[in-house]
């Protein structure tokens, strides 16, 4: 077994899983009782209209034919037409996805830059005050749903202190820069429109914070437990016996062994934030794919729901794959022998 074999194996797994996911989503959408066409068109539509729509959605065809159309559509980039917006779902999704991406990137930055150091401090100074404070914050992050955080943060910062805006990505009179990446903060920096950057930052901070707090708590706890575990190992005592000072141990010697297992979970959390984004986007009226998804659900928009779920699942699977590959590279045991 060597590393190449391992990589191929993981990639192959990922593809199989994605196929499985597509089947699963497909089944959910088609098998569950109720007529999607009827649900979409509403009670006022005539039976004729419903039938016509059913044909359009291929709902009267045998199930494997339907699946074939579904897969064909995906490979051509055509995810069907949205009942609600009447546009191609692909267009809609590509319009809204960057917003969500920006949000989860920001939230993940917070998770890593705040959660991990907090965990390191808590683990290093175990049972001292900093440990207890950090554990309290982590705990509160983990047990509170992101929408509750969203509401609390909104009340404190947007209403009570009135320093941050309540909704949207940009203030009403600010125009977004022309699209390069679709991430407003990056685009505005590239184009030198720094006032737009500031405005975008002001808008993103509350939703990103609400989104990150749960993952932050988890990251902090995990880092803490990994660091404590590493500090109990023989090679740390050995390092001390060779005169390493504590700071060097904490930053260079103990960090790598502790962080590598954490990395996997952090990657999972980054992808999982996509799920939680639904709630935060809803509260802060953030124009992202999650809000689009919720809308799709409320309007029983078959194609939109299927497409959104599929995209999110694909993103999740590939992020996991990339994280696995990074970990495989960093961990010499895997890198050199391909065994996990």
């Amino acid at each position, binding site marked *: 077994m060597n590393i190449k074999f391992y990589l191929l194996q993981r990639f192959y*797994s990922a593809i*199989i*899983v*994605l196929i*499985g*996911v597509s089947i*699963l*989503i497909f089944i*959910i*959408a088609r098998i*569950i009782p*109720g007529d*999607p066409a009827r*649900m979409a068109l509403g009670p006022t539509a005539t039976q004729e209209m419903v039938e016509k729509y059913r044909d359009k959605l291929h709902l009267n065809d045998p199930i494997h034919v339907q699946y074939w159309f579904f897969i064909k559509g995906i490979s051509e980039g055509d995810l069907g037409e949205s009942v609600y917006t009447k546009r191609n779902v692909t267009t809609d999704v590509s319009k809204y996805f960057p917003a969500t991406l920006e949000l989860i990137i920001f939230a993940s930055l917070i998770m890593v830059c705040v959660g991990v150091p907090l965990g390191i401090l808590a683990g290093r100074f175990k049972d001292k005050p900093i440990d207890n404070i950090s554990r309290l914050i982590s*705990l*509160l992050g*983990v*047990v*509170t*749903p*992101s*929408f*509750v955080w969203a*509401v*609390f943060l*909104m*009340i404190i910062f*947007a*209403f*009570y202190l009135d320093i941050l805006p309540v909704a949207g990505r940009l203030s009403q009179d600010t125009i977004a820069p022309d699209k390069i990446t679709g991430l407003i903060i990056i685009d505005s920096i590239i184009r030198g429109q720094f006032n737009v950057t500031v405005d975008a930052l002001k808008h993103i901070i509350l939703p990103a914070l609400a989104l990150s707090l749960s993952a932050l708590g988890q990251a902090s706890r995990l880092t803490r437990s990994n660091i404590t575990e590493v500090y109990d190992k023989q090679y740390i005592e050995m390092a001390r016996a060779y005169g390493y000072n504590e700071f060097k141990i904490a930053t260079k010697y103990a960090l790598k062994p502790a962080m590598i297992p954490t990395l996997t979970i952090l990657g999972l959390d980054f*992808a*999982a934030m*996509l*799920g*939680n984004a*639904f*709630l935060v986007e*809803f*509260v802060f009226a953030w124009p992202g794919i999650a809000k689009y*998804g*919720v809308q*799709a*659900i*409320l309007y*029983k928009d078959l194609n939109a*729901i*299927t497409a959104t*779920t599929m995209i*999110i*699942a694909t993103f*999740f*699977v590939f992020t*996991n794959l990339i994280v696995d590959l990074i970990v495989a590279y960093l961990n010499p045991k895997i890198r050199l022998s391909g065994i996990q």
Partner: protein
Amino acid sequence: MKIFDSRAWYKFSKNPLSIVGLLIVSLIILMAVFANYLTPFPEHAGPFVDIPNKIKPPSSTYLFGTDKIGRDTFSRIIFGYRTSLYLGVIVLCIAVPIGTSLGLVAGYFGGKIDAIIMRITDIFLSIPPLVLALSIMAFLKPTLTNAMIAVSMMWWPWYTRLIYNLTRSIKNEGFVVSARIVGASHFHIIFREILPNCSASLITKITLDMGFVILIGSSLSFLGLGVQPPTPDLGTMVSQGSKYLPDIWWLSVFPGLAILIIVLGFNLLGDGLKDLFDVEL
């Protein structure tokens, strides 16, 4: 098979946070079960309208204030706990047996069965939890029952994975091998040798999960995909209350805090059990 004895209790009680968790959970369960007798305004939990008393801030009569049609927030929160606990129990009653059985079978028999079951589990686990629940709820009418089904469907894979890993390591232990040599039936080995040794992990995970199921459930109802009014539900209350921010803050803040507290309670209790049994989840 004794898990709890006086020594265990002593060790558990050494950690003050675990005791706090136990107290919170016990208190909430008590309040929820006897809600009819303990709340000041039990009738507010159902269809009830009292316009003159609407939108009153917290006071001595209405501890957490009243809502737009005069219902007492405090009483509704207690009844909301009922819904949450009911959801948690039912979901786990469905997800745990399914997930555990699959994990036991896959881990014990190995081979093709293992491959198929774990593949399917992986597929379910490849969709972020909330997204899966949402896409199921998308096609169902938003009711409590349907929400329970949706959440159970996304929850069982976690148990399969946990029990699968446990089974794989336990099945090579001395006592299992000797049972096989003696000729014990598969059924006996799975349910009498392997499963009891998973009990510590199971109990801990179930306790922690109660909190998380309630959290997901409240997220679903926040989006309007769970329980429908007038049944009191914490997530729905936050959602409806958020429309009136910031002036009428008590309508969303208190239910939000209520969710926090119940999840916190189960989490502290679960963490205490985790330290006590010394399990890795």
